[in-house]
């Protein structure tokens, strides 16, 4: 389902399959791509614009999507273990450079910003499409993402990337072990009711990271200084060989409608009195008013 071939000179050297096989078999040097997004800080009070089509972004404090921090951390851990290169990809407006700098300060090696006015108003489909086009121009053995971005909470981009690049994926990853010499990984994923699955997957593959995976490091001061000087490559529509009809609001499959604020919960009653009486009264209310017990 890849739209159009690439017409642009490749920005990175493509490593063919055989070379990749040989490199990994030696058990070293893993190329890791991490896709991140900049989102409003979770404390942010969200305000809608006058025509309720979007949120007001002026006062917002922007941060790296919390789940993406786990992806960056995992990439750095893998690099630490096997050697390798960590490349950050981020799609978004110019301000997203801040989130990219954070990941560079944590220790990532290179970064790419996917930025073009034509990308605006896109959905998970168009985002995954653009990211997969950028990834085609990179060498990667594994691709890491957060399990969802906490702004639009779609939780779809990792699957789209995997689909467009014909790769397998594992989502909600809470444990990851690589066997580069066998071109394999073992991922532990959270399912439900406390259950976990162990999935063996052939590399290259996409992994969507969940909170329990690791503890993200803080950027060090020298890291921050170094990150400031690093070049961030910019890729737009032309460099990604994308048709403007296929990206942004035009290319979106899920069309956004109106935004609204959910009904606010009102404070109910505080049950007064001595604790034993209050407890009895509460249980009675749960039975009679809420009809729960």
């Amino acid at each position, binding site marked *: *389902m890849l739209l159009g071939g690439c017409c642009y000179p490749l920005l990175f050297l493509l490593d063919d399959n055989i070379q990749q096989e040989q490199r990994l078999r030696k058990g070293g040097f893993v190329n890791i791509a991490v896709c991140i997004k900049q989102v409003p800080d*979770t*404390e942010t009070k*969200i305000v809608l614009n006058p025509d309720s089509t979007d*949120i007001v972004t002026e006062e917002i404090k922007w941060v790296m999507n*919390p*789940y993406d921090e786990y992806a960056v951390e995992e990439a750095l851990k893998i690099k630490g273990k096997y050697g390798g290169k960590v490349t950050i990809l981020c799609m978004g407006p110019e301000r997203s450079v801040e989130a990219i700098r954070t990941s560079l300060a944590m220790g990532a090696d290179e970064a790419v910003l996917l930025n073009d006015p034509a990308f605006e108003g896109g*959905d998970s*489909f168009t985002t*995954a499409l653009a990211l997969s086009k950028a990834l085609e121009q990179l060498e990667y053995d594994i691709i890491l993402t957060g399990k969802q971005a*906490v702004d*639009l*909470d*779609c*939780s*779809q981009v990792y*699957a*789209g990337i*995997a*689909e*467009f690049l014909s790769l*397998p994926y594992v*989502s909600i990853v*809470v444990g990851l072990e690589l066997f580069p010499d066998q071109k394999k990984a*073992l991922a*532990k994923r*959270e399912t*439900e009711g*406390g*259950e*976990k*699955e*162990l*999935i*063996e*997957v052939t590399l290259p593959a996409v992994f969507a990271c969940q909170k329990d995976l690791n503890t993200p490091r803080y950027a060090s001061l020298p890291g921050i200084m170094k990150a400031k000087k690093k070049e961030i490559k910019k890729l737009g529509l032309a460099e990604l060989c994308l048709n403007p009809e296929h990206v942004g609001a035009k290319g*979106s*499959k*899920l*069309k*956004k*409608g*109106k*935004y609204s604020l*959910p009904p606010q*919960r009102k*404070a*109910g009653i*505080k*049950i007064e009195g001595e*604790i*034993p009486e*209050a*407890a*009895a009264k*509460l249980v009675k209310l*749960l039975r009679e008013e*809420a009809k*729960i*017990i």
Partner: protein
Amino acid sequence: MPGIWILAEHKEGKFKKITYELLSLGKKLKSKSGEELCALLLGSGIENLANQLGPYGADKVYYLEDEVYKSYLNESYTQGISELVKSQDPSILLAGATALGKDLFPRVAARLGTGLGTDCTSIDLDNNLLKITRPIYAGKVLMEATIPQTKPQMATIRPNLVEISPVDSSKKAEVIKSKANPKKEDLRTMLKEILKGESKKIDLTEAKIIVSGGRGMKDKDNFKILEELADAFGEGSSVGASRAAVDSGFAPHDIQVGQTGKVVNPTLYIACGISGSIQHLAGMATSKYIVAINKDPEAPIFQKADYGIVGDLFQVVPLLTQEVKKLKSEG
């Protein structure tokens, strides 16, 4: 003809409740569009299940039978479902926003080149156009959306939102069996092992009653009193935790409720020793009833709670357990 399709999810020889919820929702959509309601079932040796869906509203059951579907993998399921969907061209395809539905549908949508609304809290039909409502920004905003240009229109629906409509035991569904195509040796993913959780309780996203503990629990062992209260409520209840409780090592991560944990939607949520941070509220604010037990009368959780008791949870919770047991034994 085209059809409203729902993914019938099952586990250990039984349908999950979400399957009946989706069929009930499907019936409502069918009453507006007149299209047939079909269930999509994948597995091996589960004819008995295929035959159970008629009474819940299915006109047809597409049963993809193969050994390869014995254990779920997004790779094999995507292939089987996408091929069937391409051949039958349904207009709507729904699944539960469960662990399986959330993992699978994004890839199916990408393969079919169509749109998907994830984690929807409501859907409706207007002139054959699916009207999707889904929470964004951790539930601080509701977004409406449609998928006007491609088919099928796909959505995953949160569990516990739809009331199961009455069963018509005389209704039979036509079961259409098809052999599926993915070959085990072609798959690049393999399920090696399922690690069972410590708790036998049902998943938080499906629970009707959740007793949750926060930093105020002080210790891992103290979660026992929450377990006891949940047990007193009986089937359909489970135990949750705040992030502070999880990060302090009192509870495993998979029971964390909130923006970076699970989004839950029970009938009753009892928050014990939880202050009510914005990130925690994001995960439970849609609960039908919220009860707060906190020793600090100023705790923000009281602003959202239907009922609150100001007091020491170590005193309140065991008394609640006692009272619930007493009421239950009285019948």
